[in-house]
């Protein structure tokens, strides 16, 4: 079971039916600046509004301009490297005509009316599912445009000229008469101007930043000279550092512990039990780590998960051979059509648990202030959830919990958790020491790797059939694995026994095949699981696209031509496939020793095709030399960042399918650090070319969609090289 946050009912209500409309709101910010934001409300209540005597504290603005003219964008979307801050700043600065070189972006939290993610019905502030640009596209541009209009109104009044004659460029307002001034000069006056009910957004031909190749990330310099600040770097006066001792088995509890020796360690302040394990609190990290080594804990593992990977593998394979209890798709009659088939292709695939293993191990800092408010610094990917959970532990109302949204050293889904993980640990530890000092809980790499929350292990049992003309007539899969959303606050998303994250990508393949049956067996295993960059697509794209390759071969057709024959002409899938094929010179013979594979997958509204050039190494291993990718992600707000996400997604996915796996022996995780869990290193990184399909459609996802096609593209290339299909991941162990 999971602990329900105090504000749980709101999440249960999260349905993507709430109107996306809202209203712009503006106010005088503290210190005499301008603050403009956007409230989500049902359409009937939507209207322009100025909070006459209001201050910015009544709502969370999207844009603030202080009297010095400094523009700060407050992002509803959390930054883990994927460039969401940069994308959102682009939207605001485009419409505001501010100076890009001086822009600042900070994370905002704790005001769902302003910050709720539209992809989740606006009812939950969350970063996930590659939705940051989707949810920000309209409203952040509107906020930028409204802010600009208010500044122009203020200048028009002050200069006594028509607003229509005022130009705004690079953070400067000017008039033909020679009058000019920066944003700061007009911020306070602008705050008293009515907020426009409707703003006219720029047309694409007027864009100076959106879609431009040469726009550089605003945060690259600070991420290059060591000044970017992460939770690891938070230091508060008097702050203590704690490390946790988690149970070695999932589901085990502390029976007793002996901290006598630990308390003798110089710098150790206290050793305490919390509901999540034993905490060693010290003056600094090294003392905490040394202290931890001196603690002995006895665990009650009577209800713990004790099965290992071998047992689970046997169980999953056995279940996959039995009839599925639930179905995500049933079209036509698969069984009957297979009886008439000319050829049948079958495959059973096994996927391991995967760790997110972000470079910054999980951490959070908690402090209770004298007024009873609680502050938490961390990678708040699900801020509303953490606020609610922290409030319960600290015994305050959620509004008394202030979250500081830190930039994080990666996440890949890891910081979007139902139970708060390290965030609640920080509050537990702060509470356990009587809130006498701020506390940072810092996990080590081993803690991070062994504390669970993995991409689930899965088995896919696939079968597909061709008729005598080589046309596919049947496609069947039986997926076996744990549900990510069951028994969480998202359990409402599980319908008729089907967790959509278990089957997304396989229950909706884009190919025209008349008979399809996608079954699902959800198993109950005590290993905590979670979304991992591209979620279900991490395994379903592999299953679908290696199967398509096998079918193409069985049909005696070229893999690209075969796919195109089953895709709607003019579809986005067909377009990216053709573009990748053209750019990779598919169809021409590849160089000596180079073997090619292709895959195409849609995830999070974006379609990506990847063609991998693979060579074999003398030791039997392989090297991916080059990947050509074509992507349709709707309008590319920051084309170079779209490329960066595809490049990184390919590296991330390639690392996983090559060599990453979490295994368990008698319930204990075998891996602990990067020596045994081995993400991709530079020497295995291919050259990557990314081609973006020009599009005027609203932006769709980009953080995740680069990941799914790389596995099957490489597997299909390796089949050409070796003549053997890959059935068990990772390939190279």
């Amino acid at each position, binding site marked *: 079971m999971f602990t329900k946050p105090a504000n749980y009912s709101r999440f249960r209500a999260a349905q993507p039916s709430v109107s996306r409309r809202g209203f712009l709101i503006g106010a005088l910010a503290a210190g005499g600046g301008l603050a403009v934001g956007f409230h989500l409300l049902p359409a009937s209540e939507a209207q322009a509004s100025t909070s006459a005597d209001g201050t910015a504290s009544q709502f969370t603005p999207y844009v603030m301009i202080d009297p010095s003219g400094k523009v700060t964008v407050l992002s509803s979307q959390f930054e883990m490297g994927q460039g969401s801050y940069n994308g959102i700043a682009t939207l605001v600065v485009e419409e505001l005509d501010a100076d890009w070189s001086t822009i600042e972006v900070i994370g905002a939290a704790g005001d769902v009316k302003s910050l709720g993610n539209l992809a989740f019905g606006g009812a939950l502030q969350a970063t996930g599912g590659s939705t940051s640009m989707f949810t920000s596209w309209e409203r952040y541009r509107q906020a930028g445009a409204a802010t600009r209009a208010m500044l122009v109104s203020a200048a028009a009044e002050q200069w006594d000229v028509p607003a229509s004659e005022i130009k705004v460029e690079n953070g400067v307002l000017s008039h033909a008469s020679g009058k000019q001034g920066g944003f700061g000069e007009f911020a306070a006056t602008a705050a008293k101007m009515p907020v426009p009910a409707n703003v006219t957004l720029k047309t694409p031909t007027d864009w100076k930043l959106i879609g431009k190749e040469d726009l550089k990330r605003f945060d690259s310099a600070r991420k290059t*000279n*060591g000044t970017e600040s992460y939770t690891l770097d938070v230091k508060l006066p008097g702050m203590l550092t704690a490390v946790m001792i988690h149970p070695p088995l999932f589901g085990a509890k502390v029976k007793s512990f002996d901290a006598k020796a630990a308390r003798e360690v110089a710098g150790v302040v206290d050793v305490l039990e919390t509901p999540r394990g034993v905490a060693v609190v010290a003056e600094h990290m090294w003392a905490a780590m040394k202290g931890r080594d001196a603690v002995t804990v006895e665990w009650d593992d009577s209800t713990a998960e004790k099965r290992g990977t071998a047992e689970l593998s046997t169980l999953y394979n056995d279940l996959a051979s039995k009839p599925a209890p639930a179905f995500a798709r049933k079209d036509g009659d698969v069984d009957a059509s297979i009886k008439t088939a000319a050829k049948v292709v079958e495959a059973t695939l096994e996927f391991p648990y995967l760790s997110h293993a972000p470079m910054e*191990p999980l951490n959070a800092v908690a402090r209770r202030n004298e007024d009873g408010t609680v502050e938490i610094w961390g990678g708040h990917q699900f801020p509303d959830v953490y606020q609610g959970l922290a409030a319960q532990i600290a015994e305050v109302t959620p509004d008394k919990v202030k979250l500081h949204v830190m930039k994080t050293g990666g996440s890949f889904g890891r910081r979007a958790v139902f139970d708060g993980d390290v965030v609640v640990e920080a509050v537990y530890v702060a509470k356990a020491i009587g809130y006498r000092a701020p506390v940072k809980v810092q996990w080590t*790499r081993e803690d991070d790797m062994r504390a669970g929350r993995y991409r689930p292990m899965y088995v896919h049992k696939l079968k597909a059939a061709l008729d005598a003309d080589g046309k596919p007539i049947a496609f069947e899969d039986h997926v076996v694995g744990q549900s990510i959303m069951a028994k969480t606050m998202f359990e409402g998303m599980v319908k008729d026994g089907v967790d959509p994250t278990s089957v997304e990508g396989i229950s909706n393949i884009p190919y025209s095949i008349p008979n399809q049956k996608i079954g699902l067996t959800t198993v109950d295993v005590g290993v905590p699981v979670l979304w991992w960059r591209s979620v279900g697509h991490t395994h379903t794209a592999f299953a679908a696209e290696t199967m398509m390759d096998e079918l193409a071969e069985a049909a005696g057709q070229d893999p690209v031509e075969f796919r195109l024959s089953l895709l709607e002409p003019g579809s986005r899938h067909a377009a990216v496939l053709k573009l990748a094929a053209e750019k990779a010179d598919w169809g021409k013979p590849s160089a000596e020793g180079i073997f090619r594979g292709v895959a195409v997958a849609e995830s999070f509204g974006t379609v990506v095709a990847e063609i991998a050039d693979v060579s074999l190494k003398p030791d039997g291993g392989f090297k991916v030399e080059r990947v050509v990718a074509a992507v349709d992600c709707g309008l590319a707000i920051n084309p170079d960042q779209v490329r*960066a996400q595809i*490049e*990184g997604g390919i590296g991330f996915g390639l690392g996983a399918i090559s060599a990453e796996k979490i295994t368990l022996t008698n319930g204990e995780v075998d891996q602990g650090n990067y020596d045994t869990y081995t993400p991709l290193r*530079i020497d295995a990184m*291919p050259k990557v070319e990314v081609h973006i399909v020009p599009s005027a459609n609203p932006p769709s996802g980009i953080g995740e969609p680069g990941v799914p096609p790389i596995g099957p593209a490489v597997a299909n290339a390796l089949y050409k090289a070796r003549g053997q299909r890959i059935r068990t991941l990772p390939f190279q162990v």
Partner: protein
Amino acid sequence: MSGAFRWALLQLETWDITMVTLTINGTAHEVDAEPDMPLLWAIRDLVGLTGTKFGCGMAQCGACTVHLDGSPVRSCQTFVGDVGEAKITTIEGLTGKVAETVKAVWTDLDVPQCGYCQSGQIMSATDLLTNNPKPTDEDIDGAMAGNLCRCATYHRIRAGIHEAAKRLEA
């Protein structure tokens, strides 16, 4: 060296907390650190320079890379007692033509994504270019393979090092 050193320390029943002088980025810092404390934590928690990151604690990821007398070391596996008189350079104090060029290229090419590993990447890349002004892809892969980047910015790291080499040659 460090293993033997730590072993020797363990043989002592007690030792007095000693003030150690660490010369970091040209400044001497007196810190109250036991000799077996990893330099990483002394730099971060005692001196307060936070550009050097903690990633693995066992010299597997390179996020904690600093220069010791100009050569890169993993500060999580370098101990305060081993440093002696050696001069420590962290990302905050990394200067010179090569380093400045690397940093300029890193921003021009928008190499970082989350940025967490990039201090270490830049410490290693600067060392590579200092010793090998025109590295091949293989040289780069060899010199940089100890620096993990979970965002997999490797494609741009490689391009960045080539670009820096070109600019330094000009």
